[in-house]
């Protein structure tokens, strides 16, 4: 990409000028899927609406549909109207729609890929996309090998001259260490590592990026960000929905692989890592890798992990079925829909501070947060009756919804007696602020087009997280069925027992 110092109209001090991607286009495989319609297409439109896509930007869809370009444009139009974040503007739409192309075909169809190649050449010529293409594989991983093989065979993966070709993949990045390695082999056979962009949409969220700002832009929090003051950390990602229509994907994968391996371990790394020397991709990766390689599993996995499967129950006033009642789920499925585990980090900063990670479906409410819980004050110069209502101080980063930071500390209850109780101090990003802040996918797609990789996990991190998780999943596979928990509650009893063993309790988020 040309982002040269020689462009006389650019000045590093000119921070009004947005980063606009250079000439390029995006090719989406599996363009008829849910993700593509609900997230990718609207994100592309929102980027165009914010003026961040280059003139001539083109979007190519590839799928098994008997469509022409206009049919495709209609699908994108409907998806954008329904899901885009920014208002629909006809002139933006017209500008964008001129660059839509559709290539029908199967993933093993040579003629279709030949057509794709022609389409790409035509776009280069007609719209000046400069030979720069990002291939977004929004398809099940079992098709990756086919598509990548075709891209290679039809010389679509190799850039010529100064142009670039990139590939974007979504989680899951394998289902254990060996499949992750296999996937990486398939990718690296066709694309060099710097051209592979793994999307973990959590890392594109403003609030996740704010963890870095919070920790490294402030002087105030660093002194107590260590084992001297922190008692333990709880990282929670709870969903109130069930698996919906994702049975085919979810069954056999389960909560740990679906969420802990990527989102929660990444969150944990951002919370616990040392300060990177800079915010470029390499420095960030070094710190994240360091922390992931220092993670220790508990010796007794039976005592310090928990899993569950939701049973029928009442969820927020609605009667819902259990996991085994969902469509296409075998009645003897042992897939967990709730997973919790304790991890320790063996380094100077965190020795002796357990990190508790939990995630689940059909829990009390939808919430993602990181709670850093502090040790009690060494001495309380109050009578015992005065401090009965006093708990541990906590700092909570609310990732979603209601993004913000909560500080929990003790205060005096107004009155003549000295009585102390916990209060919350809230910082909210502001109800409406969130609405106008970009969607994670907007940021990530733009970063792919700009070739800016800091927010994308690298293969080494993926491997490191599977190394942490594999023994847990193997242990579970050997130990019978997950424990049932009623839908709409905060998980199975074994999860509470797991914390009780350490003398702690889960926060109710």
């Amino acid at each position, binding site marked *: 990409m*040309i*982002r*040269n110092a*020689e*462009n*006389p*109209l*650019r*000045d590093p*001090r*000119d*921070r*009004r*000028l*947005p980063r*606009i991607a*250079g*000439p390029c286009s995006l090719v989406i495989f599996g363009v008829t899927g849910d993700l593509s319609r609900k997230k990718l297409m609207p994100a592309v439109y929102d980027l*165009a*609406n914010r*003026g961040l896509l*280059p*003139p*001539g930007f083109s979007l190519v869809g590839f799928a098994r549909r008997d469509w022409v370009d206009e049919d495709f444009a209609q699908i994108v139009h409907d998806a954008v109207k329904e899901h885009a974040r920014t208002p629909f*503007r006809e*002139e*933006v739409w*017209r*500008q964008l729609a*001129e660059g839509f192309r559709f290539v029908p075909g199967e993933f093993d169809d040579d003629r279709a890929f030949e057509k794709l190649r022609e389409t790409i050449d035509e776009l280069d010529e*007609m*719209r*000046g996309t*400069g030979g720069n293409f990002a291939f977004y594989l929004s398809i099940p991983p079992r098709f990756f090998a086919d598509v990548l093989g075709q891209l290679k065979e039809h010389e679509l993966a190799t850039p010529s001259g100064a142009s670039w070709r990139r590939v974007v993949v979504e989680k899951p990045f394998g289902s254990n260490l060996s499949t992750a390695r296999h996937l990486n082999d398939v990718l690296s056979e066709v694309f060099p590592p710097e051209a592979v962009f793994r999307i973990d949409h959590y890392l594109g969220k403003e609030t996740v990026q704010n963890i870095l700002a919070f920790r490294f832009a402030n002087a105030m929090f660093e002194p107590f960000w260590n084992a001297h003051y922190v008692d333990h950390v709880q990282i929670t990602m709870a969903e109130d929905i069930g698996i919906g229509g994702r049975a085919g994907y979810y069954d056999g994968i389960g909560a740990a692989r679906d969420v802990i391996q990527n989102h929660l371990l990444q969150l944990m790394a951002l919370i616990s890592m040392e300060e990177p020397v800079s915010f470029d991709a390499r420095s960030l990766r070094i710190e994240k890798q360091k922390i992931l390689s220092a993670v220790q599993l508990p010796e007794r996995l039976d005592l310090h992990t928990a899993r569950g499967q939701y049973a029928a129950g009442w969820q927020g006033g609605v009667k819902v079925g259990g996991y085994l009642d969902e469509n296409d789920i075998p009645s003897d499925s042992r897939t967990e829909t709730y997973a919790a585990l304790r991890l320790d980090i063996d380094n100077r900063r965190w020795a002796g501070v357990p990190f508790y990670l939990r995630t689940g479906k059909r829990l009390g409410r939808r919430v993602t947060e990181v709670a850093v819980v502090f040790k009690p004050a060494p001495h309380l110069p109050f009578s015992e009756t005065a401090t009965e209502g006093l708990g541990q101080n906590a700092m909570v980063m609310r990732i979603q919804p209601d993004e*913000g930071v909560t500080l929990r500390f003790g205060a005096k209850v107004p009155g003549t007696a000295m009585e102390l109780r916990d209060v919350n*101090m*809230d*910082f*909210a*990003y*502001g*109800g*409406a*602020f969130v*609405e*106008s802040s970009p969607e994670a996918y907007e940021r990530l797609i733009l970063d792919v087009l700009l070739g800016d990789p800091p927010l994308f996990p690298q293969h080494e991190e993926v491997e490191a997280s599977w190394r942490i998780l594999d023994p847990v999943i193997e242990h579970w596979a050997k130990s019978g069925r997950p424990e049932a928990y009623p839908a709409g509650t905060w998980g199975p009893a074994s999860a509470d027992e797991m914390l009780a063993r350490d003398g702690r309790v889960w926060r109710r988020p």
Partner: protein
Amino acid sequence: MNVDLTDTNASKIASALVRARRAAGSPAMGMVLTLIVVTDDENCDEAMRAAAAVTTEHPARILGVLRQSARGRSRLDAEVKIGNNTAGEAVLLRMSGELIRHAESVVLPLLLPDSPVVVWWPNDAPDDVASDPLGNLGQRRITDSANTTRSAKTALRTQAKHYVAGNTDLAWTRLTPWRALLAAALDQHPVTVTSAEVEGERGSPSADLMAAWLQSRLRIRVMQRSTSGPGLTCVRLLTRHGDIAISRPSGHIATFTIPGEADRPVALKRREIAELIAEELRRLDEDEVFARTIKAYVKRVATAKTAKSGKR
């Protein structure tokens, strides 16, 4: 909720704000800055609406300063608004009598503690905004040369003459999408620009600033031509390989021309005031590029004058 206070003072307004926040159930403040809007009867509603829209991106305390008749005894009425779909709070301060010459005495106690202050004149602004008692309270002062009762040219010249760090003008903000496109064009085609042409509505301060910016960045001759508008209508960079041009005769959709390629439509809508203010509030330190552009503008004005008097 809305609270009307008549014949009041700053400390009563401050406690009304606290009471209203408590009543809304959320005594914590997430506001990041104070925005002072200096306006008049005619433009007050529109300006306050735009300011409220901005709070969705920048939760702020908005203080509208509305100076009414200088006659009669000093009097201050206030309208306090909290909630109502805005992420902040707004107070409209109606002043009359001798008080209108001491508006800063009302505003000063109402500034949010220890956070940035921005002063915005949606229409007419004082000549030297930085030494104006209200402007002096802010680290950022926003004027709008295109929306004053005097001629836009005079307004921009006056602002340029008194420019100090922290001043900014919406005529400059309006250029951002144009500048972004032009920079992107040169990213794509790193060619040497030999000269440039800027066309805009007669007296459009944005066209003047665009010409000054191009001149200061590219160090080339920039011609200006008047059209019937609206606003800026065309920027053309002349190169040996042909012209790079963005032309927007309609105010909505523009045509982007690059040598050797077919013309392309690009969306380049004229933006609402609220969007412009939101852009301004994203950076609160000095805009160095604007400073250089203003300098180049002053030089252009001087050269044009000499050329004219030379002709005579």
